[in-house]
């Protein structure tokens, strides 16, 4: 089945199998491997991408269901201003070790800061409960998101 999507700002047309998940589509068909697959059943959040502005577990939606939609993977958010701030704080706060969870963490972190600007650590922990990290123990990740939230709130006081 032929689908047309806007992938990281560019129009992409591909033939896909109906059973193909969005995660397999971006990784295997489009070669965008920042999107990681951990559990493939919705539990870990490593596969998180953005579809039509909404965070999405790419292992839980089919590529055919995204026909006509706009998809952003971490690759497409490289120059996103919030993402630049988040990357800096993940670096400074040791928000990653092996990096497997990091693409999903960054995309989810950006979504948290958009919905709940300037969150405290408790809010971040709660909102992050669907993202699993096997390395860091989360402390650095939570610190990084709180710090990025403060910096973004300072720079854009009216949101």
């Amino acid at each position, binding site marked *: 089945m032929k689908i047309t999507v806007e992938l990281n700002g560019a129009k992409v047309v591909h033939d896909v*199998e109906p059973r193909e998940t969005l995660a397999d589509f971006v990784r295997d068909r489009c070669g965008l491997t920042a999107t990681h697959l951990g559990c493939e059943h919705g539990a870990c959040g490593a596969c*998180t991408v953005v579809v039509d502005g909404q*965070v*999405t*577990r790419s292992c839980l939606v089919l590529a055919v*269901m995204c026909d006509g939609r706009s998809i952003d993977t971490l690759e497409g958010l490289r120059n996103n201003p919030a993402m630049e701030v988040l990357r800096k704080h993940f670096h400074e706060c040791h928000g990653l070790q092996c990096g497997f969870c990091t693409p999903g963490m960054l995309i989810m972190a950006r979504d948290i800061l958009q919905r709940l600007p300037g969150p405290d650590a408790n809010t971040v922990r709660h909102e992050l409960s669907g993202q699993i990290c096997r390395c860091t123990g989360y402390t650095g990740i939570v610190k990084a998101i709180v710090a990025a939230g403060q910096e973004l709130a300072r720079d854009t006081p009216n949101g």
Partner: protein
Amino acid sequence: MKSAPFDYVRPRTVAEASALLAQAGVNAAAIAGGQSLVPMLNLRVAQVDLLVDLSRLDELKAVGETSENLQIGALTTHAAIEDGMIPDPFGGLMRRVASTISYRAVRNYGTIGGSIALADPAADWTGCLIALGAVVRIGGRNGAREQAVEDFVQGTYSTSLGPGEVILGFDVPRSDAPLRCGFAKVARKSGAFANSIAYVVVQGRGGLVTVVLAAAAPRPIVLAGAARHLASGVDSEDALRAAVADDLKTYLPDADPYETRLHISTVVRAARDMRTQT
């Protein structure tokens, strides 16, 4: 973890979807948010020949409010309810319940219709809609029908949905008297399926009381004794505990001591939560 192959169609109307779902000799399934069905297909606990995508049917998205009830389209997502995109004349109960379901990325897709159609015993909406006295509207080849959610959900992954039938939406009755609603749930981890969920709905002062316990049995249980106690106006948590313990002997005779304490505590916490709602 890949699903077996299947065909996929995106019908334009509910009538077309019904016809596709009812075809003889074809194992067809509806898909809405896919947040339960896609992993089930990938794990191959579900296998289908044909997937009928309901997710773009405007007929299933309608939300409305009359003086009598709130109408919620089947495709309304947990996130839309969490964000207050639909009216919540139930003291914010639906918003609060929505915000505790799974994780935001799942809530962006998971729908209230898909949740009720699946009838997972630990799902959040079944107990909530039963406590609010909601009715499910169902469309099929022979027209539409309505049924109380309490009767529609029959057991673990089991409903009265027949071949070709599609959930259109829900009508949740509004009461003249102000509602006070409480809710409590215990899950091992925030966002995981719960081990116990309790809902308490009180209409006005001294009015009708409904107490529902979910995630405890194949389908939610309406606790008559606990409701009678709360309606009596006697303000004693010990008496409420005793009433719930009696209910559990009737409805859950095989509950072990841990489960009994767990369920009593969620009901007591839901009642406390209800009292904080003015």
